């Protein structure tokens, strides 16, 4: 009785519907695999076994998920403010520069947890700084943030190549990367956490930044739904005229929202740079900034949804790698195609099955239920 207007039960809305979307994406992927001449059932087995079959697989999955949680949160925060931040990739890249500065400066003198605090702050600051110009242009000049942030991805990539090749490259090394961070500049692995569940982390780079990501998710939830500023972000994002009426300063709110968004993207760099490679390398974001958009869409811009969606994409990344290894016919490109299908159904076509589900599950008044039962 107490279900509000036109809505589905929560378990359908947040459980069944995404599940159906993912299932359809997988069914189509199965057809692709079949077309290539491989057995789709076998492929799924390899994929699931690779991602979730053992401790190492799970740890790899969570390692990838960590990246997506950060970038997903970044997209979600901006999205609540009506801003579409496509610049995650560039913000991550610059965040990596912040991490590297902190680690290279402190790793010889400080324990990892001190370095981590500075590296987190630097990652946030660098990512935020990279979002600042698009934010300011949007707020002051009305330059569309989708255009400016995506352009800034290219500028970031060019800038980082320049810096890595000409400025911060380790002397005498052929590849454009910094020196290896010492122990004080590396985040510890979470082997102990895996052991709690009786699992072995193996060689997976699953590290402390996963926990930082969870804290960030909680912080985003608090920010959006429990603080005044979050209220102002949501007001601006849903009804800009009402925000003006309410005296919410547009320029300030846009800029701060984007700084937070960019900062969250920047923090992602902790995971691959300080938690895995132990050095700053070229191209380390590897598209995670873009996956964040899909994750935020699929997770309905809610931190819990984002964590779940991130783990799903972690499974696709890790399981996909395993699949490509075990079934040589299925190339890296096919894996990307499967990921694309999941993004398509979970993100872009999210509401495709909603009308059908409303017919099936939306609450109906008793009288009609009785009469239709009578008719049957």
């Amino acid at each position, binding site marked *: *009785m*107490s*279900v*509000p*207007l*036109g*809505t589905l039960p929560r378990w359908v809305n947040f459980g069944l519907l995404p599940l159906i979307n993912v299932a359809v994406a997988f069914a189509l992927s199965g057809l692709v695999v079949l077309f290539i001449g491989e057995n789709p059932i076998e492929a799924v087995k390899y994929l699931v076994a690779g991602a979730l079959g053992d401790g190492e697989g799970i740890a790899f999955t969570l390692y990838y998920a960590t990246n997506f949680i950060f970038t997903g949160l970044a997209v979600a925060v901006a999205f609540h403010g009506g801003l579409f931040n496509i610049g995650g990739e560039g913000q991550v890249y610059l965040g990596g520069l912040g991490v590297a500065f902190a680690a290279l400066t402190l790793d010889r003198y400080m324990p990892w947890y001190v370095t981590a605090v500075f590296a987190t702050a630097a990652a946030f600051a660098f990512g935020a700084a990279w979002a600042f110009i698009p934010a300011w242009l949007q707020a002051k000049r009305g330059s569309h943030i989708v255009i400016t942030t995506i352009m800034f991805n290219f500028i970031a990539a060019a800038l980082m190549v320049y810096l890595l090749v000409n400025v911060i490259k380790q002397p005498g090394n052929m590849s454009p990367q910094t020196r290896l961070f010492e122990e004080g500049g590396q985040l510890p692995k979470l082997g102990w956490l895996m052991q709690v569940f009786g699992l072995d982390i193996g060689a997976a780079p699953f590290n402390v930044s996963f926990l930082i990501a969870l804290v960030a998710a909680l912080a985003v939830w*608090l920010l959006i739904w*429990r*603080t*005044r500023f*979050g*209220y*102002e972000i*949501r*007001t601006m994002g*849903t*009804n800009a*005229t*009402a925000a*003006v*009426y*309410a*005296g*919410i*300063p547009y320029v300030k709110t846009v800029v701060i929202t984007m700084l937070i968004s960019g900062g969250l993207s920047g923090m992602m760099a902790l995971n691959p740079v300080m938690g895995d490679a132990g050095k700053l390398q070229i191209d380390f974001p590897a598209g995670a900034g873009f996956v964040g958009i899909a994750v935020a869409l699929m997770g309905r811009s809610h931190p819990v949804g984002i964590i779940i969606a991130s783990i799903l994409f972690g499974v696709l990344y890790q399981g996909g790698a395993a699949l490509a290894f075990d079934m040589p016919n299925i190339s890296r490109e096919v894996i990307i195609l499967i990921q694309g299908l999941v993004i398509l159904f979970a993100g872009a076509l999210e509401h495709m099955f909603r009308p059908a589900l409303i017919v099936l599950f939306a*609450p*109906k*008044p008793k*009288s*009609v239920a009785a*009469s239709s039962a009578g008719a049957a």
Partner: protein
Amino acid sequence: MAMNSPAALLAKVQPFRGPCMTASTLDSTPAIELVGIDKRFGPVHANKNIHLAVAKGSIHGIIGENGAGKSTLMSILYGFYHADSGQILVDGKAIRITDSQTAIQAGIGMVHQHFMLVENFSVLENVMLGVEGGALLKGGETAVRLALQQIEREYGLDVDPDAIIEELPVGKQQRVEILKALYRGAEVLILDEPTGVLTPAEADHLFKMLAQLKAQGKTVILITHKLREIMAITDTVSVMRRGEIVATRKTAETTMPELAELMVGRRVLLRVEKSEAKPGPVVLSVENLTVKDGRGVTMVDNVSFEVRAGEIVGIAGVAGNGQSELLEAIAGIRKASSGRIIMNGEPVDRNGRIDPALLRKKGLAHVPEDRHHMGLVLSFEENENAILGYQDDPKYLKGPFLDIDAIRKDAMEKIEKYDIRPADPRLKTANFSGGNQQKIVLAREIERDPACLLVGQPTRGVDIGAIEFIHKRLVALRDQGKAILLVSVELDEIRSLSDRILVMFAGTIVGEPDSHADEQEIGLMMAGIGREAAE
């Protein structure tokens, strides 16, 4: 001459159409019959077992308070919603209306309260939208143009087919909506609160057109909350209350007080009771205010006036004569290009820029004209809207966090005090009826105990019961010694509430009629005629 032509046309056409009307009234099959329509939205039982027959060639009024279920019922008829149970009969045949397309095919046309027009298209383009008749527009255009001429001849709908919608006055835009419906072959025309945006003259013209449509054998369903319109134009009237049709009457056999009582379920006062104003010191003073719109057109031209404590100053005027811009400039939403706004003796602007947040702190509250787009965030929960604009008040905050418990408790208190229904502060605001949404805004602004209240169209789209309530609240606020500036296009409202009336025309204040001035005198000023006479 231009003003006379539609009326002249009417006079010419009417005699011819006499037999037509007789023929249609002889046909006893109702144009529309609703049988046992039932609709629930979750806990809200919007339509309870509705039975309604609308006679062919008649004007049938449906009147009821906001939230009584009128719009839901018409949305079911037009295919926006599906009834949980019940049947729709058109011309005696049961049909299933699944969407607006099937409704149109069944000969049902609808003119919405908020127009569904493409603003930068011409009239012609809007009429042919969806019925272009092929990939190339040329043929369709010619066909539509011919058909439009035909329709215009028959019904006296005088609109230039090549005019751009946004350049037309609201009354003509509405005519385009009617043209659209007629072009699509509507036999039954539903009008949802059609006079909400019209001037008295435009409303009169609309009613003449409706009479003409009826004379041509068309059936009109008029949804309204204005008793006067029902009495003036309809043949039959059905009264809805809380999702049910509580009575259907021949209009000639009923009275306004009876209908009002049926609507609200109790006796209502149709006039505002108030004592003489006791004006105190000046609270709000506007000096030489000029406001330009985005294109640089002067909307408010060198306007000066004062509002004293304990008085209601009403600004009358036809919509679009600068009242909205004036209100928004005083509220700090729109930048004034020159002039000053002074509250309690202090200028409130900082370098020509007024900050709405600062104004609120100085005791200025604002009930905006457009509650959907400005006063509320419809997708928010009710309690979230109850703090809009006051989100930095320490009583709603606990450190950096919102004090959710305090906010919800505060919202609940306002819900009880203002009888907002349903009494659920966690319900999405979009799910409240228009009248209740307006009460949410009023409760928020009035309960701040402001020194000065700006009110725009306080009762637009609001039902009688709520109008009475809102008017009483405003008078009570005045009696507490607050200054109130009222902008409304409802002349009745201005006249019954205001202690002083200012008339705006073309961006300037053209006069201050005596508070006992009659409607005609103010009406002439609103048309800009008073000024010419004075000059």
